[in-house]
């Protein structure tokens, strides 16, 4: 109920600004994903057990997800309607000082070609606020990885594209949206930017493993691969390591997001 009200408000607010903002609305349309099974990459040891659990598939309920990463134009519409998320007004609790660093002003994303490219240098708090304003959430890690797994259809392509992206020199910003859509109709999950997930830090306990009983120390920390479903899936390691390195107020040049939510 509350979400629906917020969504209406956002729509009203977004109706105000002129054409530049409306253009952003063409992007980021929701795509329905069916319920299905998903095998987590990281195996979580049961409490008080020295053994890793077998990779047990989990059920993911049907959900909607943005078909593309959120663009600079889309984000401009949001900060236009929600001044507290503009770069001059953001609270340090919610974003580090690199927030929207490529934007030239509060309501100007700089280079014209940035319009339809993924917005980056956005913190988890800000990404979440954007999605909430649309009545949505950030995808969970399970939802995001489920969308990427594409029912097993795109494994080789995802790995190849990820490795290509790592080898591409770091330029002045992410490339244009427009990679091939996967079987669900979702595109550019890899190859342009990393993406925030709602529970990005769910697997970051390893950093405290010395003092507490971090339960999956073997999975990310120090690199031993005993605790993952497929130790040869390097891009998956990279995704989990990236998430584990983040804190919610961090921003990064190669880190963007998309939204998800609701049942189709």
């Amino acid at each position, binding site marked *: 109920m509350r979400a629906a009200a917020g969504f209406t408000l956002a729509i009203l607010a977004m109706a105000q600004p002129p054409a530049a903002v409306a253009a952003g609305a063409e992007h980021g349309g929701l795509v329905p994903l069916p319920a299905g099974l998903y095998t987590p990459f990281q195996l*979580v040891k049961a409490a008080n057990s020295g053994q890793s659990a077998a990779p047990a598939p989990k059920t993911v309920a049907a959900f909607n997800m943005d078909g593309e990463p959120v663009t600079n134009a889309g984000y401009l519409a949001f900060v236009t309607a929600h001044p507290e998320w503009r770069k001059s007004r*953001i609270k*340090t609790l919610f974003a580090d000082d690199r927030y929207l660093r490529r934007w030239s002003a509060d309501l100007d994303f700089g280079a014209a070609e940035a319009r339809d490219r993924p917005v980056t240098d956005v913190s988890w*708090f800000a990404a979440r606020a954007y999605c909430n304003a649309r009545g949505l959430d950030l995808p969970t890690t399970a939802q995001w990885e489920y969308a990427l797994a594409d029912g097993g259809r795109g494994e080789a392509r995802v790995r190849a594209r990820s490795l290509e992206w790592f080898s591409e020199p770091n330029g002045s910003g992410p490339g244009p949206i427009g990679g091939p859509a996967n079987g669900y109709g979702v595109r550019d999950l890899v190859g342009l930017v990393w993406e925030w997930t709602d529970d990005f*830090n769910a*697997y970051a*306990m390893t950093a405290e493993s*010395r003092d507490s*009983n971090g339960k999956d120390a073997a999975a990310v920390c120090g690199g031993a691969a005993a605790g993952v479903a497929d130790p040869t899936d390097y891009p998956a390691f990279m995704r989990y390591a990236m998430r584990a390195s983040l804190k919610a107020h961090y921003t990064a040049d190669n880190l963007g997001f998309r939204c998800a939510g609701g049942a189709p």
Partner: protein
Amino acid sequence: MTLRAFVSAVAALIALGAAFALAGPPPAIEPSGASLFNIESKWTTQDGATVALTHFAGRPAIVAMGYTTCKDICPAIVADMMWVEKHMTPGTVGKVRFAFFSFDSEADTPERLKLYAESHGLDLDRWMLLRADDAAVRELAAALDVPFRPNDQSGFDHAAVISLLNDRGEIVFQQRGTRASSEDLLAKVRELLLRSE
């Protein structure tokens, strides 16, 4: 005004301010950008009262996250907080609040929180146990930098993090992991109280 008169006037003002902080409502000052008081979520206490995080304004607070059915790490977190409480002087312990925020929005009802406080002998003059919906839990956990996830045993895997907030809701120290004795945390609390006197 003589120096002495000036000093005692200032002292009186400070005393007055301290009295307000202890008794009156939280001061309605704009929180700094780093303050946790920028978070707007609402929480329910063990007594069923609804509070915002600004409830903790005006005094230092030692806060942590856990859940009441947690068997391994949460009792150690609470024990660490109680260790600090026990090692403060009777004169200063009343100037600090202790808060335990639950991950478990379903099971940890106000009644459950109250039972937990009683069974652990927590002094509810100083302690507060709180619950909220999942979105609020995730937001607070992010702000306090407490990684967590639901596990397959109807509980949560999570890091042990005890945070010390100053009277304006800014994190001034974190103890990550549990200790036999939380000396560093205690020292920071004392330092904070000294500075605010």
